[in-house]
């Protein structure tokens, strides 16, 4: 169920999580699941991260890890912060309209 809704919002969620703290793929996968957004498969999350990096919204660095091979960490760039601010506003307005249409009483 969450997967259907998440389509189109995954990038926004990733930006939000990365604003909180930099992270690597598995870490982000776990945090999305903990937030109640379900399990996002690697075949979906890594291309989304690649797109964010290609468009300059996040940057990445490979770092050695204590437990295994190096890890690719992602963090928000300045452009990413701006994009997040803009999209957050858009989403707030859009979700307010949806609530009004489907008659949700009180949500946030």
């Amino acid at each position: 169920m969450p997967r259907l809704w998440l389509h189109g919002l995954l990038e926004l969620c990733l930006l939000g999580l990365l604003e909180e703290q930099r992270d690597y793929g598995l870490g982000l996968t776990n945090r999305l699941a903990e937030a109640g957004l379900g399990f996002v498969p690697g075949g979906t999350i890594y291309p989304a991260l690649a797109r964010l990096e290609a468009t300059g919204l996040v940057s990445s660095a490979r770092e050695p890890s204590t437990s295994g091979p190096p890890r690719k960490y992602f963090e928000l760039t300045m452009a990413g912060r701006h994009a997040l601010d803009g999209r957050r506003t858009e989403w707030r307005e859009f979700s307010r309209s949806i609530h009004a249409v489907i008659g949700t009483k009180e949500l946030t």
Partner: protein
Amino acid sequence: MSNWPANFMHALSEHGLDSDSVQRLKSEALEQATDHGLPPERVFGPATAYADRLARALRSTTVPPLPASGKESVALRLAGVSKRYGRRQVLRDVSLEVGRGESVAVVGANGSGKSTLLQICAGTVKPTSGTVERAVHVGYVPQSGGTAPFLTPSEHFELFAAARADSRGRGIATGLQLAAALGWRPRAKQPVGQLSGGTRQKLNVVLGELSRPELLLLDEPYQGFDHGAYVDLWTQIDRWRDTGTAVLIVSHMLSELDRVDRIVELDAPEE
């Protein structure tokens, strides 16, 4: 037992990624799979499908915008254009404008003069009456033809780049980059005559865009494209538009028409 890493690398290079990037993406994928504690096929799904998604994501880089030429925001203006061949009226009194950073589609029944209109826009056919004003740098992608069977794609890039005082080396580099955006990696010595129809059309699209024209004219440019290439082309069209190019496309693909800014419909041919 499938060889996921080898399949993944093969698919990535088919998408036009260079060998350094392919190596790097393979190492990263295997490292990430190790993080998950699972084999790569369980984390990412089939290698070919994952390579496809990743390659497409990596192509999301933006094209640098065209330098703003403050003078004129209209790249093409047709006023009262008519065309007749003998007694046959092909176009009657067509007026349209395409601004920079705008995409416009031309639709109409078979025989309504769509291709003729585009040729008039390109300047290869003269209208019987009416006026045409257009930007200086125009790219034109015909439905088919327009390429030389004995030359390689890179030789085409050189030739077309030379037409606009570009250095030859840069023509090839730019051409290869644009080809990669359509998921095509030209092989060095293969003449165009040996390419499939769809790949020859990709060459046409690259040639149309090569000199970064202000006005790009596309005449159903996707004959023979597979679905992936078709999706890539529309992504490219959005990108050209967003970076200040004026795009005029003749299309039968009515399902994509919500992606353009405006639609011009030509009248059905007279009986």
